[in-house]
């Protein structure tokens, strides 16, 4: 009898846990759900990248068919941008912003849950296309139009079946979720700060998320509008992007990239935000140039709205537009350079602790610099005419997305997961993860520039042996294996530490921002007493009452 009652009881307990997570409006739980769901998609989209690299490792390969290859790069790009990058960054933001500003939750907790579930539903819908995309027509399963889905590929004539519709709907839903979450973050930051947390005392992470969220409003709108137009084209017979009725394919490009380029900064600003918190703590110094950092961030936010057409130099925009967008793109290097110098100045003369999060941060600094340099090269319109849509471009933007953003996301995991789970990640495994990943990253993306310079276009499913691209592609693909192993070590580390990692305690890094004043993991209400702060580093003030920061801050 005892056994038979024990089984349903444990099952009920399990169901209780699921029920608790499904109905939760706690920003910490929603943040963790965002992160977990993004991690699952990271593995899926990473697996897709591996399949593509196997196909391209040698010439005339037949590992996957051309049709499957087209689906793979479409799904890889769409997943990584909308269902890995955005949710993982929103997840950290959701978790950290209220804790860092001394609030008990986000401004609109239920809207927060709505934003998460609608984004998650979008991701599932995208992958459901593998099952449902055939529809009645039996043509195409997953979308195969590329992640920027240029017209007329998306027109009913060229994209039969429902795969493109799943893509459109998935992005529309993800956009609604993103706007909901961004709205919540802005409102939380403006309206929920604890007493004394003036705007110029907020941790830089909160500042950067504020700018990111404001950019989400302006960037996601055009994407949503373009998706509505595309749906009207496909379902109601409208002619927005239908060239045969006088519509313009270039208009889609404009609308997409008015979203697409700010989106790059929406993804990279949170990475900067992590660096702004992690680098000072492990340099044992306050961040250098706090006001300059804020100003540079706002500058990036504004300039990034006027650079979109550098994705379209090869279209033939005319001399004036080319000149304008070349200049605007180059100008964005100025605030970005300010940031890099500020991070270097923070490191300079600091007592640097090379923990795993710091190692990833230093890797980020170096790799982001190189990514910026190839970015400056590509911003020159004539150079772009030569290398646009080549593997050079692919190498450049992966240098940003993997070399900078993903590296800082890993750093953020090592830094904040002790707060989230209460247990430290293994430093030893973390170092394995770091070195495997860095070696793999450089094998893949350093050498990927070369076939691009040799003229290898992106999105080709194979190439002939006499092109001279094989050795480079082989190196690129072998690097992908190192990265995959590194990622698996990371996942193992996450799982292991969740059960067996050393207990973290409230403040394992001897850090200075408010989230470290709570127990790890923090209780549902975050702060038993709403804190009150007098400087940018409230925990420093607490630990060093004889020498508080407020004596030095302007």
């Amino acid at each position, binding site marked *: 009898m005892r056994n038979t009652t024990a089984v349903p009881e444990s099952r009920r307990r399990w169901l209780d846990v699921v029920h608790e997570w499904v109905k939760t409006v706690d920003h910490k739980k929603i943040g963790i759900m965002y992160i977990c769901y993004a991690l699952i998609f990271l593995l899926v989209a990473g697996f897709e990248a591996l399949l593509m690299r196997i196909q391209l490792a040698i010439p005339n390969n037949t590992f996957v068919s051309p049709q499957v290859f087209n689906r793979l790069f479409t799904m890889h790009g769409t997943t990584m941008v909308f269902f890995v990058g955005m949710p993982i960054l929103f997840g950290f933001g959701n978790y950290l912003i209220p804790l860092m500003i001394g609030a008990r939750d986000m401004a609109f907790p239920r809207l927060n849950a709505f934003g998460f579930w609608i984004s998650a539903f979008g991701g599932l819908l995208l992958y459901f296309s593998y099952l449902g995309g055939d529809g009645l027509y039996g043509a195409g399963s997953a979308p195969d139009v590329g992640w920027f889905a240029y017209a007329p590929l998306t027109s009913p004539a060229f994209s039969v079946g429902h795969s493109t519709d799943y893509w459109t709907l998935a992005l529309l839903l993800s956009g609604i979720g993103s*706007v909901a979450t961004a709205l919540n973050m802005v409102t939380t930051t403006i309206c929920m700060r604890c007493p004394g947390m003036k705007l110029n005392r907020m941790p830089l992470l909160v500042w950067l998320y504020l700018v990111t969220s*404001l950019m989400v409003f302006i960037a996601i709108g055009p994407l949503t*509008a373009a998706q509505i137009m595309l749906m009207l084209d496909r379902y109601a017979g409208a002619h927005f992007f239908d060239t045969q009725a006088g519509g313009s394919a270039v208009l889609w490009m404009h609308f997409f990239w*008015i979203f697409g380029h700010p989106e790059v900064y929406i993804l990279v600003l949170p990475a900067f935000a992590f660096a702004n918190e992690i680098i000072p703590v492990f340099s044992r110094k306050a961040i250098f140039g706090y006001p300059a950092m804020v100003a540079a961030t706002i500058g990036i936010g504004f300039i990034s709205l006027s650079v979109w057409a550098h994705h379209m130099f090869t279209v033939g925009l005319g001399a004036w537009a080319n000149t304008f967008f070349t200049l605007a793109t180059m100008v964005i290097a100025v605030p970005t350079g300010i940031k890099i110098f500020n991070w270097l100045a923070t490191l300079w003369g600091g007592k640097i602790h090379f923990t795993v999060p710091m190692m990833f941060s230093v890797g980020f600094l170096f790799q982001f610099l190189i990514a910026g340099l190839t970015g400056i090269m590509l911003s020159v319109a004539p150079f772009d005419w030569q290398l646009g849509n080549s593997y050079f471009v692919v190498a450049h933007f992966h240098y940003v997305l993997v070399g900078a953003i993903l590296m800082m996301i890993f750093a953020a995991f090592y830094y904040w997961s002790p707060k989230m789970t209460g247990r430290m990640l293994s430093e030893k495994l973390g170092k394995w993860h770091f070195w495997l990943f860095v070696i793999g990253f450089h094998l893949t993306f350093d050498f990927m520039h070369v076939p691009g310079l040799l003229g290898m276009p992106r999105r080709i499913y194979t190439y002939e042996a006499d092109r001279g691209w094989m050795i480079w592609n082989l190196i690129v693909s072998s690097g992908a294996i190192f990265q995959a192993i590194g990622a698996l070590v990371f996942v193992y580390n996450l799982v292991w530490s969740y059960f067996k990692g050393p207990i973290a305690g409230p403040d394992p890094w001897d850090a200075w921002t408010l989230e470290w004043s709570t127990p790890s993991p923090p209780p549902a209400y975050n702060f038993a007493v709403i804190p009150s702060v007098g400087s940018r580093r409230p925990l420093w003030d607490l630990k060093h009452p004889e020498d508080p920061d407020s004596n030095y801050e302007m």
Partner: protein
Amino acid sequence: MGGIAVLPHNPNEPWNLPSRGIVGMVCLIIAEAAIFIIFVVAYVFYLGKSLAGPTPRDVLELPIFTTICLLSSSFTVMGAVSALHKNQRNACSMWLALTVLLGFIFLAGTAHEWYNLIYRDGLTIRTNLFGTAFYSLVGLHATHVVLGLCLLSLALLFSLRGQMTSKHTERLEVLSIYWHFVDAVWVVVFLVVYVFGR
């Protein structure tokens, strides 16, 4: 380190932050404005590019009466908010009812216009680029009017049942900001579509 770090709160220091509802609504309006801007750009971009008729000049008439109705509903909703602020509940219901009525007149005007365009002039979303851009822009705006009317009707219902008191002023104010935005968008649509685009 101890578990909880609390710095002394100085109760003399005033600490007032803006209202969440209003900031949230302003954020939503920024995001919505971005969507509308793209639809307006598409409309302007496709002006005169239709390969076949009818053109805006052939079929569009200035919707002056319905425009006056919609724009004056901004003032009536302001009346409702200030009445609620003064706790004059009946006046608030009256102003809300007037707002809803004016909104419905506007929607009826749009419906009538569309009926004529479709059945008299043969203009649908499929006819040409003008039809495509016109119906989507005006339709997107009308969708927002419908949403606003639903919310306003709900507020009216609460008000009539006496469940709305001066405590809820801020919520009604948030709704009124949305309604002002819908009206402001109409000013742009009216100018672009009916005045300059004709």
